[in-house]
């Protein structure tokens, strides 16, 4: 089998739409094009039925009731709706303190910052160097006026899985609304919302082989969680989220989540094998560091810092693979990843990190090609690096005092 370059290893940024998903979507782009809110004619009814079937599929993947699924335009909207919506609804009774983690996605951090501007207080927990939250530190952050906590299931940059059940139980004991951003978790970890003590959970389709532009928010019914709508209008989605729904995209998300439910067990086994193969190969290079815990981690993710290589030149050198040097959403800036810095990585190591994310269409050949490419490119870059030379000479670079010029 030949390898097509650039090899796509950026499945955490977005995934291709699975062909089966696209096939299911197309009819809703052509003949069955009704507006699901048009109750008065059969064009609308067909669309509505398809929307409800998709809602069931999304609910099934996470073992929820379909009535607990609210469609949104994506995980960013779900996070904004959950955080602002719940904080506003419950602040009057409970208080105005929110807990989240400094390694959350911007779509959680920015709404929390917005709440701060409105007069809420927020605690941004620092994770341990492995990326996981210390439960004792979480407990210590709780105040009598803590109304909401938001912790992501799987981190987008380093792939670590937080102990959502334990954190949820702490929130329950303290009567705190618990929101979980699960955009990176669906199809990768088992999610059972009948057992998990989670009140609100955000989902995205395009991270799980569905289309872009569609997501969902899980809103628990028992005990019933209330949120203040952030988008008003025709009163779609039981008033929690208005706006004409893109039927074909909803149908696509339903099909993508159905496939995830049916295939995730075998798929993850294969991806795990590929990841281990990639890790083993890359560890043959000197001075590489894995970012984030390896045991509590989705098999799809490998985030590695290559020491003594300059970040920008590293990205330039590996053009044959499509990877991310930070989360896709922040890679427009040249700031080192705030997630890696929160783990205590130096700016240099953060800059010279690569996130490899493996998915449904990655092959063994892709992985082997990547290993060889990395070995040769890192070798060449280091040949040009005075720092690498100093390191080989036994100089401890952290102790060097650089002269300004």
């Amino acid at each position, binding site marked *: 089998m030949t390898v097509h370059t*650039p090899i796509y290893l*950026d499945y955490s*940024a*977005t995934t*291709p*739409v699975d*062909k089966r998903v*696209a096939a299911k*979507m197309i009819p809703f*782009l*052509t*003949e*069955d*094009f*009704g*507006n699901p*809110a*048009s109750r*008065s*004619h*059969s064009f*609308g009814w067909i669309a509505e039925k398809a929307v409800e079937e998709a809602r069931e599929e999304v609910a099934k993947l996470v073992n929820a009731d379909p009535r607990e699924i609210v469609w949104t*335009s*994506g995980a*960013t*909207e779900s996070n*904004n709706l959950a955080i602002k919506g719940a904080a506003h609804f419950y602040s009057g009774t409970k208080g105005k303190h929110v807990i989240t983690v400094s390694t959350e*996605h*911007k*779509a959680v951090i*920015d*709404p929390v*910052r*917005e709440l701060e501007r409105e007069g809420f207080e927020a605690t941004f927990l620092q994770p341990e160097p492995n990326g996981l939250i210390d439960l004792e530190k979480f407990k210590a952050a709780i105040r009598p006026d803590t109304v909401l906590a938001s912790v992501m299931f799987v981190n987008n940059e380093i792939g670590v899985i937080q102990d959502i059940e334990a954190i949820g139980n702490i929130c329950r004991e303290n009567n705190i609304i618990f929101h979980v951003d699960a955009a990176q978790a669906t199809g990768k970890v088992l999610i059972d919302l009948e057992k998990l003590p989670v009140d609100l959970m955000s989902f995205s389709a395009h991270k799980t082989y569905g*289309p*872009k*532009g*569609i997501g969902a928010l899980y809103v628990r019914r028992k005990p019933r969680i209330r949120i203040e*709508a*952030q*988008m*008003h*209008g*025709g*009163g779609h989605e039981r008033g929690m989220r*208005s*706006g*004409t729904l*893109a*039927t074909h*995209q909803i149908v696509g998300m339903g099909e993508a989540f159905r496939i995830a439910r049916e295939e995730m067990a075998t798929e993850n086994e294969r991806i795990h094998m590929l990841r281990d193969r990639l890790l083993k190969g890359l560890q043959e290079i000197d001075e590489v560091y894995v970012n984030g815990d390896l045991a509590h981690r989705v098999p799809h993710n490998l985030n590695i810092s290559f020491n003594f290589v300059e970040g920008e030149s590293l*990205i330039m050198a590996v053009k044959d693979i*499509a990877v991310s*040097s930070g*989360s*896709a*959403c*922040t*890679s*427009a800036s040249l700031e080192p990843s705030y997630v890696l810095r929160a783990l205590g990585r130096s700016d240099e190591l953060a800059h010279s990190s690569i996130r490899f994310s493996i998915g449904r269409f990655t092959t063994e050949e892709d992985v082997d090609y990547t290993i060889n490419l990395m070995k040769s490119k890192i070798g060449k870059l280091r040949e040009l690096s005075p720092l690498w030379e100093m390191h080989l000479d036994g100089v401890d670079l952290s102790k060097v005092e650089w002269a300004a010029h």
Partner: protein
Amino acid sequence: MNNQHTYIDHNATTRLDPRVLEVMLPYMSDQYGNATSRHVYGRSARQAIERAREQVADAVEAHPSQIVFTASGTESNNFIVRGIAALHLDKALAISAIEHPCVTKPAEAMRQIGCRVNTIAVSANGLLSTASLQSCLTSPTSLVSAMLANNETGVMQPVAEMAELAKQHGALMHTDAVQVLGKMPVSFSDLNVDAMTISSHKIGGPQGAGALVLDKRIDIQPLMMGGGQEKGLRSGTENLAAIVGFGAACELIKNELKMRSSSTQALREQLEAGLKQLGASIFGNSVARLPNTSFFAFEGIEGETMLLALDRKGYAIASGSACSSDSTEPSHVLLAMGVEEYLARGALRVSFASQNTSQEVDGFLLALASELTRLKQMTAIAV
């Protein structure tokens, strides 16, 4: 499915133009990058989005940098109303009486947190009253919002004149142009408004994409915060395929606008000649309307009942906006125009696209006439 059905509800949503689908398909398969990624997959997604931005800007005579992509018209309207009001809670909003709920409801939400909301009245002919706007503007106002044409009556509104008034009073002017794009020329620069809402699925594009055309100098609070897409004004991974489709649909308007408006206007004239013979009251027909829209009622006939009867006969129409057809409340637009409630309850809307035919209009009129006779007989028995 639905092959036997005649769809004449194009103000609710339109069939995706097959030429638009063609352009979208690669973005549902091989072209799947995240537009924020810096590798070639991301860069080609970014290029496609920027191309669409130019096409959309071109269709509304705006600069590409003035286009903020959103997920829908609803989102654009919520964004402008909440985003401006949130920064000026001490000032009033002036909202027209005939707006879609996705303008009035966010205004209502802002009212609940202390913002004053004034209503711009509508005249019996369906035209918004500039005199009423004048008196609204006696309170310090942050934003005026009035649609360019009403979705139910199709009546074209004096938005340029209203924008002038708003500017004189230091208020920003927003217009919801969702129903006008693709039916009549729309010029963001000529209207001299500060913000304008448009939507893809009303013009033969896919659902899932809309835009707020926005003067860059305006301070506005984003509705969706996060990754900082759309220059920080609208976070969230761009809906690549839908945006590409929106752009393609806008491109098609350029060459086809005249044909679309004259062909739908001919169908409407044919329809209304028949409606008059059947004794219908037609709303807003004394002033300029969208060429494709007809809003009418028959005394003593419930709109909902007629709607379902016509659906069984194979004609898909509306009784008002699709978004409120869940409820049996009479049209708020007609009530604001002073139409009596019993007549408003009978309101039916037909909205054509250029694919519709003269034969379909004939068939529709026949079906309507026979249902009218049947329903009148039933009413007579009931009495």
